[in-house]
């Protein structure tokens, strides 16, 4: 199968077949990552720009390693050191980078839809590395990859996503991904953090963590952003943690072999109790490791179509 998408802007735009192709390709990439010489020439001569308008250690490093393992030429663009502070528009910045020979642009931006603007106006392939509250496709793909690795099959799993769904790009991408691969998705969080009409995404909405956890195969905890305090969405971190924080006790309501995931970084004692955080640390590190393979697959497929895989 050839990957026909020029860009990866979100999981909403991908079919189940395309998602599976990315995951299958990521498996081959994982094999590369386990070699002594962790490098293949797949993207030799391709210039990839990491255009990160938001601070990110994990995602940016992961993309950079992925690019280097594929032998791409990598340029990291950090807006604080650039013309953006002089008032250059996003489009002009990106056009300049394209003029320097970039053919793949990996963009992280605080505003939803920013990658769409580049996709519409530029010739390069655009890979969304997280935009506003919209999508974070590479995170969802690595979550899917990690779950598939452990559970063998996504179909039929009960997946619970806990927290601030309203502002979460991780949640949106995961919802599309898990639903498309046949899982049942349950969302849980305070009603103020549930986006309008989200049920229409074919998910079930819960306001009680206990109810949502019953029989769960996978639990994805979202990071609660400290700056949301005082926004009127919830009274205090203390109360949030009491009702929506994950403890060992609550986790017992899920299936015995439940997988607990977190996109990181964790707020210990808020969305995860400290003991649970320690329990799950290994899975979180698996996610991080798998992230490289998944991003290699994404870059490889948008840059080459994967025809000679």
């Amino acid at each position: 199968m050839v990957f026909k998408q020029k860009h990866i802007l979100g999981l909403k735009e991908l079919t189940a077949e395309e998602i599976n192709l990315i995951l299958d390709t990521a498996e081959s990439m994982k094999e590369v990552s386990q070699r002594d010489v962790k490098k293949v020439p797949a993207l030799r001569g391709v210039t990839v720009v990491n255009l990160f308008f938001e601070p990110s250690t994990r995602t940016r490093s992961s993309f950079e390693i992925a690019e280097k393992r594929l032998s791409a030429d990598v340029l990291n663009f950090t807006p604080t050191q650039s013309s953006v502070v002089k008032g250059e528009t996003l489009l002009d910045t990106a056009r300049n980078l394209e003029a320097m020979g970039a053919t793949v642009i990996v963009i992280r931006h605080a505003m939803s839809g920013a990658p769409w603007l580049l996709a519409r106006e530029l010739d390069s392939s655009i890979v969304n590395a997280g935009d506003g509250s919209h999508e974070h496709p590479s995170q969802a793909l690595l979550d899917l990859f990690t779950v598939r690795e452990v559970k063998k099959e996504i179909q039929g799993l009960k997946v619970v996503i806990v927290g601030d769904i309203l502002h979460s790009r991780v949640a949106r991408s995961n919802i599309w991904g898990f639903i498309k691969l046949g899982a049942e998705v349950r969302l849980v969080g305070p009603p103020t953090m549930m986006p309008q009409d989200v049920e229409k995404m074919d998910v079930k909405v819960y306001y009680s963590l206990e109810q949502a956890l019953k029989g769960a195969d996978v639990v994805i905890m979202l990071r609660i952003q400290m700056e949301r305090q005082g926004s009127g969405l919830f009274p205090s971190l203390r109360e949030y943690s009491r009702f929506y924080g994950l403890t060992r006790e609550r986790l017992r309501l899920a299936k015995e072999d439940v997988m607990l995931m977190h996109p990181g970084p964790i707020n210990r004692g808020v969305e995860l109790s400290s003991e649970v955080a320690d329990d799950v640390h290994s899975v979180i590190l698996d996610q991080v490791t798998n992230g490289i393979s998944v991003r290699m697959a994404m870059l490889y497929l948008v840059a080459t179509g994967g025809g000679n895989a």
Partner: protein
Amino acid sequence: MRVLIKGGRVIDPSQEIDQTANILIEDGKVKSFPKDIKKLEKESDIQVIDARGNIVAPGLIDLHVHLREPGFEHKETIRTGCEAAAAGGFTSVVCMPNTNPVNDNASVTEYILLKARTEGIVNVFPVGAITKGEKGEILAEIGEMWEAGCVGISDDGWPVMNSKLMRHAMEYVKAYGIPVISHAEDLNLSAHGVMNEGFTSTILGLRGIPNASEEVMVSRDITLAELTGAHLHIAHVSTAGAVRLIRDAKKRGVNVTAEATPHHFSLTDKVVLSYDTNAKVNPPIRGEKDVEAIKEGLKDGTIDVIATDHAPHSEDEKKVEFDLAPFGISGLETGLPLSLQLVKDGVLTLPELVKKLTVNPAKIIGIDRGTLKTGAIADVVIFDPDKSVKVDREKFRSKGKNTPFHGWELSGCVLHTIVGGKVVFSG
């Protein structure tokens, strides 16, 4: 100079006329509806326009446009805005005060009117600000602006959030008999939203503006209109709830009128799905139920007027992240064809539609236009309602090419626009 418009279907709702007739214009005024024109046609000093098979109506009046001058001439000028109006069949435009400086005192009003007289090819009627700088803090000098020629007051673009101040504005303006035009929006509920709140905003991860943001303020302003007896005009109605509130208020006899824009009855918020900033507008494009409710409101008379809310912006300003793009759609040159779709869909008859674009807006701001009565100033539009036209924003006279309708096939083509007896546009 005389103009003879012969053989058109004349629709003038101000006189309840809908018949084939000839119109003779002399000295800039409607002279007569001559039956026998054989002799007239041959006279040398007469311009004959053959309107057979076409509609002849009073020149259209757009109750809600942004001409951007002074201050934002890169978006639009009074000259280009008037040219766009003429191309769209509008012979009068009512311009909002959110210029720079804001039209919040008589000197700015006079400047706009001077520019309009020297450079504008259609009639320009300014609206003054309710509060100084549209800041919602203290009343602007409304009396002097009225004296200078303002036909209404509004802080359009911004609501007056302070209810007590809005009450005083409504009381104060009664001395001058002009309407208070409300941009109904509760800014706290809007919470810096950029599109309609609903399933589409959820998918896109964009901050939503709930319907309640508009409805809370429509409700407040109706209450204040009841308290004060002032004439309240609700601008750009976008939600089903707002239509219902206005309908109920009218039933109770409250002095309230309302307008809706073509984009609010032609599109749903799905148009934003590709993050198209040309569809970013305030109030936002709403859902299907709202569109149906607006059509129902137009049909039953709850909504008196169709106005474009023409809001031109430069290309550069719109080619940015969705959050950063300014609100607004360039509407003057698509207003009539989009409205004619209502006739095709059976929502309005052609005379009902013309009424909402001529005599109704004229009445709201109290101007002697929107009619073809003998002796009236000869503002006339001649259009072919059935001719198919493909919207091409590159051909807009307006500097604002920001339209979500680019490439749409619409019916309705303006053939001639006549202002004060002079042909200012021929298509």
